[in-house]
């Protein structure tokens, strides 16, 4: 059974990451006029003809050890300095990377990966099956204390019969194993790795790592894919947003992970800034969640009415960027159905439904939300949308850590953002809708209990990738969209802001913050 779906620390940690990102990114920084390109930027590293990309973020990177990296920037750095068996293309499709191909045994419990012949670490050591074996064993070892351990708990044995064959045996069939092998935790490592200085297997290698201050990456000469990309990447950590902006204007910084709130509206409304911005939808659904065991949300018709009262387009307008959600699943999971269409706001119909439901306004529902200003704006709109049809809601803005605890602890309703650890519908849906995950502090905060959905999720989980699996998840989603324990609002869109001479910046639907593939003129 795929343990990552249980209510362990996992879905929580990425959700934390997601929400933090969402709190910060729609706000990031804008620059003066885009200005004069200075060719190469300052930032600690330089050299004639060498191209240096300097990035500034308000966040920190806590670790560059593949077994430990889990926050946004640690993951982005490990992603840049490693390759894994598989990767994702720009459409979030799983593609082979260090594995040429792989096959599954008929019982679904054994995966055999065949490695590419001439992959090398940055120090010239050939990358072999044993290096993946060490990585997985290390993540699984409780001594390591890896935040990714649960993802690999379903693996009973990893074997390396020869240099180019890796055999992974599972306790139970799990069609998402390739996804798990694509996470940065499973990047190949050499024996006795130095957690501060892992040997690179990817397009970049670590030059310096000063946690909380600066990270410098330089190109790995053994990785040919990086040809044309910038030679060095300097990541300035803990740079406050207003300062980010100043540094970008002065040419000290080339790329920002977002545009700060104070500048967002101006930059996005300035046509001359068009080429300095990259935006992309990522796998994250913002939603209004309700506890289906609390009045008035225990009445399905009240939920339907509430959904009809919501103006999802307004959520996007006030967030600045995003895409109206017409499903619960985000766009980059295989079971996502782009043809779905949810009804638009219809206040008259909503009122009528409420009347039919025999609804009378009772105690105010308390809506939990994180107290950042951006969050609040969107939650206020939900509140006023619901007030317009006569459902009173009280906002409870609290610090993010209180919020995470609070909404899982028998709350009435909450404003939430959720994303999967990797592009898979089960990884997204099971923690939050399977009845097994109901309970104080657990992820099914809606207290949603539907045996039909439970069965579909359990069946889909062991069905191999393909149409049948997709169909099962879509059936589950059909029911969820009818029952509406979550009212999907919109999909998160991230924004990057960069100087005129920077090219190739993308928002990756899976990796989000990506340092690879960037060029400079």
């Amino acid at each position, binding site marked *: 059974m795929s343990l990552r779906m249980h209510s362990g620390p996992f879905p929580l940690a990425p959700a934390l990451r997601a929400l933090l990102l969402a709190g910060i990114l729609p706000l990031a920084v804008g620059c003066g006029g885009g200005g004069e390109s200075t060719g190469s930027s300052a930032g600690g590293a330089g050299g004639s003809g060498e191209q240096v990309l300097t990035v500034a973020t308000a966040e920190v990177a806590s670790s560059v050890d593949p077994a430990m990296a889990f926050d946004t920037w640690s993951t982005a750095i490990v992603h840049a300095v490693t390759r894994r068996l598989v990767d994702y293309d720009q459409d979030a499709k799983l593609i082979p990377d260090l594995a040429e191909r792989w096959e599954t045994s008929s019982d679904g419990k054994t995966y055999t990966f065949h490695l590419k012949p001439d992959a090398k670490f940055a120090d010239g050591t050939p990358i072999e099956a044993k290096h993946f074996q060490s990585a997985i064993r290390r993540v699984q070892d409780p001594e390591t204390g890896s935040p990714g351990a649960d993802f690999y708990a379903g693996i009973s044995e990893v074997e390396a019969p020869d240099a180019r064959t890796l055999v992974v045996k599972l306790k139970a069939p799990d069609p998402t194993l390739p996804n798990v092998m694509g996470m940065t935790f499973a990047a190949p490592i050499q024996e006795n790795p130095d957690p501060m200085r892992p040997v690179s297997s990817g397009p970049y290698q670590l030059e310096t790592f000063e946690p909380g201050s600066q990270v410098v990456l330089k190109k790995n000469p053994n990785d040919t894919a990086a040809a044309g990309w910038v030679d060095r990447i300097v990541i300035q950590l803990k740079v406050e947003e207003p300062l980010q902006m100043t540094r970008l204007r002065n040419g000290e910084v080339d790329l920002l992970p977002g545009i700060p709130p104070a500048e967002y509206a101006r930059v996005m409304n300035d046509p001359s800034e068009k080429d300095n911005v990259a935006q992309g939808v990522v796998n994250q659904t913002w939603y209004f969640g309700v506890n289906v065991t609390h009045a008035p949300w225990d009445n399905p018709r009240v939920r339907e009415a509430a959904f009809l009262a919501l103006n999802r387009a307004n959520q996007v307008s*006030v967030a600045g960027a995003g895409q109206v959600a017409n499903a619960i699943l985000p766009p980059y999971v295989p079971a996502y159905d782009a043809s779905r269409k949810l009804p638009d706001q219809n206040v008259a119909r909503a009122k009528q439904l409420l009347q039919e439901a025999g609804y009378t306004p009772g105690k105010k529902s308390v809506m939990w939300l994180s107290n950042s200003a951006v969050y609040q704006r969107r939650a206020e709109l939900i509140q006023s949308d619901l007030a317009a049809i006569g459902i009173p809601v009280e906002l409870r803005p609290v610090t993010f850590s209180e919020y995470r605890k609070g909404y899982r602890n028998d709350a009435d309703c909450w404003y939430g953002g959720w994303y999967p650890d990797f592009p898979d519908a089960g990884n997204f849906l099971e923690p939050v809708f399977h009845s097994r995950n109901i309970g104080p502090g657990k992820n099914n905060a809606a207290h949603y209990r539907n045996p039909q959905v439970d069965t579909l999720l359990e069946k889909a989980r062991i069905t191999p990738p393909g149409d049948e699996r997709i169909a099962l998840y879509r059936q589950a989603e059909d029911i969820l969209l009818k029952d509406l324990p979550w009212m999907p609002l919109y999909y998160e869109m991230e924004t990057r802001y960069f100087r005129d001479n920077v090219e190739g910046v993308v928002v990756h639907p899976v990796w989000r913050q990506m340092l690879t593939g960037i060029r400079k003129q």
Partner: protein
Amino acid sequence: MDGSEVGPERKRRSPLLVFGLLLAVGLILTGVFAPWLAPYDPLQPDPRVPVGLPAPPSSQHLLGTDSRARDVLSRLIHGARLSLSVGLGAMVLAVGLGTLVGVLAGYFRGSVDVLLMRLTDVVMAFPAILLALAAATVLPQRNAWTLILVIGLISWTAAARIFRSETLSLRERVYVEAARSMGASHGRILARHILPHLLPTLLVVASLSTAATILMDAGLSFLNVGVPAPAPTWGSMLLDAQQYYSVAPWLAVWPGLAVLLTVASFNLIAFELRRRESRGAKG
């Protein structure tokens, strides 16, 4: 107090005092009658206005709308009600507590004085806004009442010091000694001979303190630990305006002006009252 005793020169009206009083009274009336004065519901978006970017002033929305299509004027008017209730409520608590501590310390002197004044020093030693932030963060629920409590409990120290020194000098007056020698109780001396003479100072301190508490309330809302959203506090309006200052600079002007005028009016009143009093004392 008996107004007929006031000498002819002190009767001269100070235009600044009148201005301050008019402004303060006007603001208080605005707050009291907010639901009748405000043209729109301060919490509901105007469905005719698109949500997203703030809209500039128009004939329908005299001060424009915010990013959620809510009428800024209505929010400002309701904001007066919130700011003034919190400000005045906290002032009453602060001045009440300050008077109590100050008078007791000044009157009894000795160990009571030492104890109370060291307590005052301790509270004063912390920057007020830090204390308020910490208190507002740990509160299980934030609303106007808890905010009054937080601000009031932090802002009493200045009043305590002033009233202590006033009391120290008052208790040495001949009439107090006379009352004491005739066997009057402490309670009677405090109620009949000390407190009434503190009244002019009380007015000044109350006025100053109101300006301070309103400013602190605005500051806390700006830091997002005031009365929670969607309450139309001036501080939260400023916070909201911050994101849009480059495209909708007017959004920050209105709440900023409101805080400025309110604080200025109470400060003016305090300033003028103090001037009159010191002139009266000399004369």
